């Protein structure tokens, strides 16, 4: 078996005395879809924030594609092939949908000042490629016809999908989705599941936080369960959900 794409060892993130993430070990192989679940406040988003460079992490190792990435700046981690979306949608609200995706292309393009000022051939070609790529990705997430709308005017579900398109524009090897179905109805959630599968078909590995158990069962190859900053279980979706520790974390102890 080849080396995992993402390998997290004994990772902790403390805020003063609060151990938001404590000693988490997790690895994700190429082509997998892995879900992280757990009650509110279990440290899932903090864990993602350390992976993507928002927090530096207090202890432990994160290696991606064989190289250590813990403590790198967020843009450097994007350049290495990790992109993400957010629990609360964070689009560039006043830019068009297409421009949002074009911004996502930043890490894979080069032109700085002289190119655009002199409108060099290299610049014009790069711009054309960026735009074509944006259109292709909008098409992929089903938003092509809305490409020139301002992001703020898009319906909720479309905004979620636009975030995924923007993240994919950076050509990630690993896509991290923080509650992609939050606030969605069952039909929209089902569409999102099929979108996540199609993302994997593009060769992108997916790590997601998810609360809807239907979605978790449908989409995940493997599930990791967090509680109080610690990973309490890991395995195949159905096995994990039958695990008494997991049931206890969600529902409390019987007779307590």
């Amino acid at each position, binding site marked *: 078996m080849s080396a995992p794409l993402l390998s997290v060892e004994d990772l902790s993130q403390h805020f003063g005395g609060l151990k938001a993430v404590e000693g988490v070990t997790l690895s994700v192989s190429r082509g997998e879809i892995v879900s992280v679940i757990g009650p509110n406040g279990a440290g899932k988003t903090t864990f993602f924030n350390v992976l*993507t*460079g*928002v927090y530096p992490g207090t202890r432990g190792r994160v290696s991606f594609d064989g190289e250590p990435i813990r403590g790198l*700046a*967020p*843009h450097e981690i*994007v*350049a290495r092939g990790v*992109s*993400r979306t*957010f629990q609360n949608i*964070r*689009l*560039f*609200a*006043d*830019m*068009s949908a*297409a*421009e949002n995706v*074009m*911004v*996502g*292309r*930043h*890490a*894979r*393009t080069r*032109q*700085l*000042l002289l*190119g*655009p*000022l002199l*409108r060099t051939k290299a*610049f014009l070609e*790069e*711009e054309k490629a*960026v*735009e074509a790529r*944006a*259109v292709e990705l*909008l098409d992929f997430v089903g938003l*092509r*016809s809305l*490409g*020139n709308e*301002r992001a703020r005017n898009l319906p909720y579900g479309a905004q979620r999908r636009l975030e995924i398109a*923007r*993240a994919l524009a*950076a050509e990630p090897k690993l896509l991290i989705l923080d509650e992609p179905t939050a606030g969605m109805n069952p039909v929209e959630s089902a569409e999102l599941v099929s979108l996540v599968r199609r993302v994997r078909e593009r060769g992108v590995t997916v790590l997601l936080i998810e609360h809807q158990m239907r979605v978790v069962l449908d989409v995940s190859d493997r599930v990791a369960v967090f509680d109080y900053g610690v990973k309490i279980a890991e395995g195949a979706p159905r096995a994990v959900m039958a695990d008494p520790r997991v049931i206890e974390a969600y529902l409390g102890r019987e007779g307590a």
Partner: protein
Amino acid sequence: MRRLLSHRHAPALLFAAALTLPFVARAIEFSFLTRVGGVVGLMMLLSLGLNMTLGYVGLFDLGFIAFYAVGAYGTAILMRAHVPAPLAAALAVAAALAMRALLGVTILRLRGDYLAVVTMGFGEIARLTLNNLDAWTNGPKGLQVRPWRPLAFLGAIPGLEFVRKESNVQFYFLIAAAVYLAAEASRRLENSRVGRAWVAIREDETAAQLSGIPVARYKLLAFTLSAAFAGLAGSLFALWDQFVTPESFVFWESTLLVAIVVLGGMGSISGVLLGALLLGGIPLLMEATLSPRLIDYRYLFFGLILVLMTLFRPQGLLPSARREAELSS
């Protein structure tokens, strides 16, 4: 209006129309109009500069006028050292860029209100320095600059003989060209990877960072580049007026520039130009035409306009239009 302004040739046509102003002023025997045009042009240059930081990136800067001062004083001091005018201007712009970069490195970690307060402080320090650094700036008495007539050669063209003697007309043309180039440069940067990164930072700094943009570097880039326009405006101002004093670089001017960018529409080139025309031009024309009794009230009108704008059109007069992508296959 929107469609008219977004036309491909609109900038060139507006520029050509602007060039006729000195002739109109001559025809109606109101030569002060050319001077107003030049002053408005300088306002436009400054506003385009501030638009780069405040408009695109959303960095609040209440001391922008300091870099206008660096351009003006830099040029004045170099002219006194017998440096040729174009070289003096170029060096003054370089000095403005360098100082701006230095300031940016130290303060750009601050956000929002904090940044506004610190830049405001810097603007005041700059003015006080000019006032007190007598050895270089001659303090409040100001510096005289030797005359330079950049476009005297135009007088050789039949019909343009009057331009030879009129420095107002010459500088008007020069400033108009500078505004045109600055607007064109802004437009080109806006529709590029750099411009998109800037606007993304303004819209959501965290999301920008996690979309692969090195935010600190791009903030510094916009912050620094904006001083090029301010420095150039200052340099043209010194060469035109042949006299600089600290009085020209007061806090009010910085506030006015912020008002222009906000009133016109943050990040909108046409909006900012219109804002400069209105806020820069109207008070001057009021001064020239109103009775002395009413002049005292001009800032009252001014304040009223700003309050009404914030109430009824908070996105600005001409909010920025986003570029359309080619979506058909």
